């Protein structure tokens, strides 16, 4: 009737607040998991990552994010000058390779959330949602890499606080003269 191993239930959506998903075995309640659903504001960023148990988790970050490009020039070609009057330059750029990073922030992150987020920093699969919010397909996610170091997993004092992560987005393709 079933297979030994993990089953995954995907709930399409919840309203903000505390929700639950209950699993039944042979029609008997086996476990109820708690779903903390956060408010969804326009521009809120959603990250998906695999935790230490091989399970994919989600975590939202607020809409105040920034993207940073780190271009690196591929090289330059020398230009032979016949006249300084109209030669414009003695070397031309071939193009750039670019790393685009996105900095995300989550506010009021509790200690319990930090415990769960601890797996994010070393997760081999981290995805950023790029869809329009109405779908959840493979094309709605891009794989990223955690780019920042010194990630907080426990606070010295206090239960709430903000965390920031920097994700290195996949290759940002650029036009080159090659």
């Amino acid at each position: 009737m079933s297979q030994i191993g993990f089953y995954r239930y995907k709930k399409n959506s919840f309203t903000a607040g505390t929700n639950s998903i209950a699993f039944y075995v042979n029609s008997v309640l086996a476990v109820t998991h708690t779903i903390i659903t956060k408010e969804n504001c326009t521009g809120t960023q959603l990250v998906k990552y695999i935790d230490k148990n091989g399970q994919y988790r989600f975590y939202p970050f607020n809409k105040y994010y920034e993207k940073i490009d780190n271009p690196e020039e591929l090289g330059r070609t020398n230009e032979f000058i016949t006249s300084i009057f109209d030669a414009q330059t003695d070397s031309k750029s071939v193009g750039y390779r670019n790393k685009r990073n996105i900095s995300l922030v989550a506010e009021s992150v509790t200690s319990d959330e930090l415990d769960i987020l601890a797996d994010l920093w070393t997760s081999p699969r981290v995805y950023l949602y790029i869809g329009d919010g109405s779908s959840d397909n493979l094309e709605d996610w891009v794989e990223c890499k955690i780019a920042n170091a010194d990630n907080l997993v426990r606070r010295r004092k206090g239960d709430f606080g903000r965390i920031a992560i920097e994700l290195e987005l996949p290759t940002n393709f650029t036009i080159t003269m090659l």
Partner: protein
Amino acid sequence: MGISLLSISQDNIVDGSDLMPVHSPLRFLCQATYSGDTPEYIYVDLYDDLDALQETFRAIPYRDISTTVREFVFIAEALLRQYMEDFDDFAQAGNTLVYCDGLTKRFKLVFRDPDGVAIDETLYFNAMHGASQFGEYPNKESLYDNNPKTYYNLASRAVYAYYYNNDEANVITVDGSTIPGATEIYDEDFSGSLPFGFSVVQTPVDNVVSKETIGTDTVLKCFLVADPLDGINSSYFNFSIELPSYASNFGNIKSTVEASLISAGAAISYQNVGSEMRLYLALGVGNDTDVADYEDNKRTYEKTQVIPEATPLRYIFISVNNHSKSLLPASIDVNAYINSIKIEKV
């Protein structure tokens, strides 16, 4: 002379949990009682979930417990990982329960005397992609026991929740929905709230002209607004009643749903209008638009459909179709009741 007895001294099974992560050290110990020459190794046969021999490895000496007992260690984590499948994320439809292929794999280890004299020692366990930390057992007991967990998500966005199943005989469902494999037959007459995880999803189609509410019981209320000046009105509502994570997993099944359409409110004074309402039921995937499913002047409707094995049965589709040649009032309340749901093996 040689090994006379093999005994697994560390099987890493904790309180019945045989769920073992392979991304952190996972070592099995086996003691060999011997006489004569000290054995330098014992064999460890690795079998997969189909009981096919994958490879034979050697457990190496770990310590000498006495002059006749030597303990061997089988360093398993890296070896097992190469037999595990990928566990990348996969596409999954919403509100469905699916098995996570690749996340776990069943193995059998057979500790074997190289001379074939001592009786083999066998160990079954379920390896999983995961890691434990120092101070924790090399065993995911908490996952095995399905201790409650907290997941985070964003409103109106998807979220995953996981369940570990340790028995093939189990039937696993979510939010109380029933898979008929559990009882072979599910036959429920009800008039209370929607049972077994049913939830109502309104699917507006075509020229929906008014609002709808979901009744406190199983009543689905439609509020049809007709144009009094138009003798023919064809507005209608659709309701998809969704049964999460339900699928026919033991062969063909036959599903029968009986529902009633009852005019209420303003329609009472328009009996002819009420009687000309059509209630249309469809079972199975999506919207059955077969014209033959419409029947005139029928207040109670029963529809039976044979559904092939493995076909998701997630929707009971109800359409209240107001296609009357009568002069309609400005508005009509219509209640659709689900009377019974029956699912049986055929």
